[in-house]
């Protein structure tokens, strides 16, 4: 067993940490207070190779493994969870399924653009009546005159406002449930697709969350991703990677809480001494550090398993569950360490508090993750 990161992984960590500190952190408060898509930051991230981290060099990417991606995502989220999710979605939810399930032609057409940051991708699974029960989705795909016609309404689509390309899941077969689904690569310029309502959110405000409307949207036969009826498999395989990305986001937020608290506890004086000398503060910091360490190691393990080509559904669920609950818990404690200063916008704590919440919800709520984990523990019959 080897607990040390390789030289390359350490270099990636140091590089992304420096990039995040210099290019993202100074803008992170303003991007939250005045939400807007951080175009310049994303352009710089693309120049560094962050938009196509996991895309092989042959398709214009950095050619890194999933562990490197997780390491990079933690560093990005430490600076801004909003900026990070834009980059994470492009990698884990868009490039990843094209890489795993796409035809050679699809990879050549889409991956270089996504990796270079010329195009941004989004992932359209959730519908108004299909959230945790995603496989019951109702968007229809009909085969008509040699092309697919998509009709339906997708919601909560991260990156949807700016995206040039959407991975859309729709029901193509008469079968109900996961087996009736197919995945499609839909370019935003195809006729019949448009952005609907733009959501206002509690946190991660610089990433857009929108409704995507499909009204007789025409998709060429060559844009079916994977096989007919394979959509459910693709969605779930993709979510394993996506959940590792969200675990990394949560670890990044929790680390931000710990680092801010550590600095503040040294500088803040009460009762004639720095508050770090009080055991109540020390215990808060120790508990944060412990949970962060556990979350990070579980995230690394899930990423490592996935890189080995092994199934990691339960491990990714475990990593995301503990990391997201750690982020929320750490943010809650961190606001308390800061007291009144934790509640006001001049300090970043209230932002971490708002940002942390989403990690317990998207890409599988804590409840769904517990269901997935319980299946692993009890076997499918047990649940």
């Amino acid at each position, binding site marked *: 067993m080897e607990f040390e990161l390789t*030289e*390359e992984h*350490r*270099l*990636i960590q*140091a*590089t992304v940490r*420096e*990039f995040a500190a210099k290019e993202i952190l100074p803008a992170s408060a303003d991007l939250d207070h005045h939400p807007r898509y951080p175009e310049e930051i994303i352009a710089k991230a693309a*120049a*560094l*190779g*962050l938009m196509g*981290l996991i895309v092989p*060099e042959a398709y214009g*990417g*950095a*050619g*890194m493994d999933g562990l490197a991606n997780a390491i*990079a995502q933690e560093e990005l989220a430490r600076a801004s969870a909003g900026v990070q999710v834009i980059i994470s979605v492009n990698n884990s939810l868009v490039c990843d399924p094209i890489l795993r399930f796409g035809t050679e032609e699809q990879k050549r057409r889409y991956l270089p653009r996504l990796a270079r940051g010329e195009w941004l991708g989004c992932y359209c699974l959730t519908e108004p009546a299909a959230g945790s029960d995603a496989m019951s989705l109702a968007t229809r795909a009909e085969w008509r005159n040699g092309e697919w016609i998509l009709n339906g309404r997708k919601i909560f689509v991260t990156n949807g406002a700016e995206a040039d390309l959407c991975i859309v899941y729709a029901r193509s077969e008469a079968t109900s449930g996961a087996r009736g689904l197919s995945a499609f690569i839909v370019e935003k310029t195809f006729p019949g697709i448009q952005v609907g309502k733009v959501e206002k959110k509690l946190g991660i405000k610089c990433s857009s969350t929108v409704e995507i409307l499909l009204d007789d949207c025409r998709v060429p036969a060559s844009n079916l991703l994977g096989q007919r009826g394979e959509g459910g498999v693709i969605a779930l395989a993709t979510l394993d990677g996506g959940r590792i990305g969200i675990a990394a986001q949560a670890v990044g937020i929790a680390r931000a809480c710990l680092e801010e608290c550590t600095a503040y506890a040294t500088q803040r004086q009460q009762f004639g001494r720095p508050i770090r000398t009080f055991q109540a503060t020390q215990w808060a910091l120790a508990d944060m550090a412990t949970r962060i360490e556990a979350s990070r190691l579980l995230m690394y393990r899930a990423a490592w398993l996935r890189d080995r080509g092994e199934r990691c559904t339960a491990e990714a669920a475990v990593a995301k569950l503990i990391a997201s609950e750690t982020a929320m818990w750490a943010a809650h404690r961190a606001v308390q360490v800061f007291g009144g200063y934790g509640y006001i916008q001049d300090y970043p704590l209230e932002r971490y508090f708002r940002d942390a919440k989403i990690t317990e919800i998207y890409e599988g709520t804590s409840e769904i993750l517990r269901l997935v984990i319980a299946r692993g523990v009890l076997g499918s019959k047990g649940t």
Partner: protein
Amino acid sequence: MNIIVCLKQVPDTEAPIRIRPDGSGIEGTGLNLVMNYYDEHATEAALQLRERFSGTVTAVSAGPERAREALRQALAMGADEAVLIQDSALDGADHLQIARVLAAFIRPRRPDVVVCGKLSTDDNAAIVGPALAELLDLPQATAIAKLEVADDGTRAVVHRELEGALEVLEVPLPALLTVERSLNEPRYPSLPGIMKAKRKEIAVVDLTGLGLSAAEVGSPAAVLERLEPPPARSPGVQVNGADPDAAVGAIIAFLSERAKVL
């Protein structure tokens, strides 16, 4: 243009430094090591020269195994080749010994430019660069903050920032330059660059490989006896109170009576 950049791996300046209980050095465990910041600027300068004049950038470090990481970073930033000079005879080597070893490596390569950081942030000596220039018999310009190389690549105009003045020098090439941090903004190693660097081999040579005997490297002129933490500073004097006149009076009294600077 044949460009050589010399690098050193040093403790992160933001890392807390702990002295070993026996005072023999600093605690290595848990210490974050990075490429010396000045050397990042030296690497950037070397890469910019190559981009303008083509040619190759060779990164070299004389140090322990862990110096490999600094070399890997230079490769990831875009250096063509990296060489680690590693030999147990160099344990505890001083700056002049390191300069001799680097000179033995660099001399047969006949570089057009050798670039070093102004100093390394671990021991702030600023010796290796100038010593290396002497050993290589190259003209040198140290702590340069601006570099303008003539189109034909035969000479350069450099700026040195002095206390209250700017020194402008013309240097014929080949030359050795040591660089200030204000010279440029080092590029990030791009992520594809890191992956490409992973596949490049870092050559390792020892003193024999350089044709050097231990006698030629010499022994350290100064030997570290003991490291001690600096004495704790006495707390400053705080002037409290809302009345500005009284506060000014108290500060003047302090400066003239206790600090005796007025």
